[in-house]
């Protein structure tokens, strides 16, 4: 692996950047691996990286049916924060945020993590109470959280309309300053490059079509490029989690929905933070290229078509215009959707399963990008040791039987 540094950039500048080597290999699948990871999104690639780095397990394949980061990793609105309500979630997302803070250095790859702050708006008394409750819970967990009164919101984000006459007046907001955004493709590429350098085989264009079992034990996976033997198969296939679990005969408490986003034309910098509103359902930030990146809620129906409905865009745009009158004449450039797999408690499943050697990481719903490093780190531990790390133990599949749900619908902030 070439190390990126000021010297390597200068050297390659001399040859017009035409001689950079490939950043990861493109191997054919071997007949067997110690661990097979299904899904080459950020979580899957990250899991492979931490398996190799933290646990010395490098005889690993990541199988991706399309191309790296072509799933939800490359489709999200890139918001990273850790201000979740319950202790279980707060610890997991905060662990992730700490890894984000060092990720570019760790991977020697610039993931463009930008701690520009995230504000969550409150529009009615109930919002205010719920937000402040979450804020105090965050502080008890050592997570930075501030409350802004409307005039402080205005000072922090001057283009926001905080007029009391607004249809959804801004009664205040929580602010997490360490939160922000990251470059989503870079996360997939950075992990791919670093995992490959540690010997992980990353195999694109390889769809898993079956999970093979002998008795209660995984023995391999069936793919469009032949059978690959393994005693540990881990699925990290956001959106398709039920489909893959179904191949192993497992039913899950998951429903898959479209979630869409859109971007505007590029404009000069006007928005230096991330603004989210769960109540009117829009969240927006400005990319380093200048586009507004805008997200909203999920489509109510379950669907796998990676296509959202227009009426959601309409609602999302109405909310955006209400909050930011300055954007009323913006042109939207393109829209797209991903498929998100949602759990009844709006929390993920990072877990062993009743089948030996079969592991699930999914159900992140609308909010799994922020957790990419933390999720991958815990999942690698779960696979390597065959037991969950204390951070992901509460997110086990058996919580639906024990009743220990982790209800994060409020903090998830996106309707699902």
């Amino acid at each position, binding site marked *: 692996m070439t190390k990126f540094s000021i010297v390597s950039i200068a050297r390659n500048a001399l040859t017009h950047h035409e001689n950079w080597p490939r950043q990861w290999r493109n191997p054919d699948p071997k007949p067997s691996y110690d661990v097979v990871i299904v899904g080459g999104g950020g979580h899957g690639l990250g899991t492979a990286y931490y398996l190799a780095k933290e646990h010395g397990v490098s005889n690993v394949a990541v199988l991706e049916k399309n191309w790296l980061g072509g799933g939800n990793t490359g489709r999200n609105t890139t918001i990273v924060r850790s201000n979740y309500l319950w202790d279980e979630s707060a610890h997991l997302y905060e662990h992730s945020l700490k890894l984000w803070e060092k990720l570019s250095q760790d991977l020697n790859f610039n993931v463009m993590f930008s701690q520009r702050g995230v504000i969550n708006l409150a529009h009615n008394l109930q919002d205010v109470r719920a937000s402040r409750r979450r804020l105090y819970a965050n502080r008890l967990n050592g997570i930075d959280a501030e409350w802004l009164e409307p005039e402080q919101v205005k000072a922090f984000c001057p283009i926001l309309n905080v007029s009391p006459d607004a249809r959804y007046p801004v009664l205040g907001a929580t602010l997490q300053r360490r939160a922000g955004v990251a470059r989503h493709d870079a996360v997939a590429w950075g992990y791919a490059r670093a995992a490959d350098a540690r010997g992980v085989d990353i195999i694109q264009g390889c769809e898993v079509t079956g999970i093979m079992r002998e008795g209660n034990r995984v023995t391999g996976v069936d793919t469009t490029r032949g059978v690959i033997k393994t005693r540990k198969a881990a699925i990290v296939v956001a959106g398709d989690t039920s489909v893959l679990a179904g191949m192993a005969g497992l039913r899950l408490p*998951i429903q*898959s929905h479209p979630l869409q986003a859109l971007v505007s034309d590029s404009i000069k910098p006007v928005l230096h933070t991330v603004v989210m509103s769960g109540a009117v359902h829009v969240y927006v930030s400005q990319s380093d290229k200048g586009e507004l990146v805008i997200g909203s809620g999920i489509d109510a*129906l*379950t*669907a*796998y*078509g990676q296509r959202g409905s227009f*009426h959601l865009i309409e609602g999302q745009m109405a909310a955006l215009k209400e909050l930011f009158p300055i954007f009323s004449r913006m042109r939207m450039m393109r829209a797209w959707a991903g498929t998100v*797999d949602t759990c009844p408690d709006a929390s993920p499943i990072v877990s062993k399963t009743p089948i030996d050697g079969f592991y699930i990481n999914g159900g992140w719903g609308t909010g799994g990008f922020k957790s990419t490093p933390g999720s991958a780190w815990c999942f690698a531990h779960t696979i390597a040791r065959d037991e969950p790390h204390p951070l992901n133990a509460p997110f086990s599949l058996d919580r639906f*039987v024990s009743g220990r749900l982790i209800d994060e619908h409020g903090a998830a902030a996106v309707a699902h």
Partner: protein
Amino acid sequence: MLLIECPYCGRRPEIEFHHGGEAHIARPEDPDALSDEAWANYLYMRANTKGWRHERWMHAAGCRRWFNAIRHTVSNEILVTYEMGTETPPLPTVGD
């Protein structure tokens, strides 16, 4: 936006409807006898089929009645809608 045929009111835009998830889930007959696993199964485990599936809809901004549908979750095509309590049409076989 989908156009959905309410069996009572006819074809209306999707925004008039409320999606109700998987159809034909039977309530447990003897709740007291249920194990925790069986409860979890009844409460939380749902078919999340990639393809044709039976599901429920409610005509929220119309007659407010529940009915069932067979819809393809990739193409969104709705094959048929039918009243609650009537015979359940079979799902098309794979490839249809």
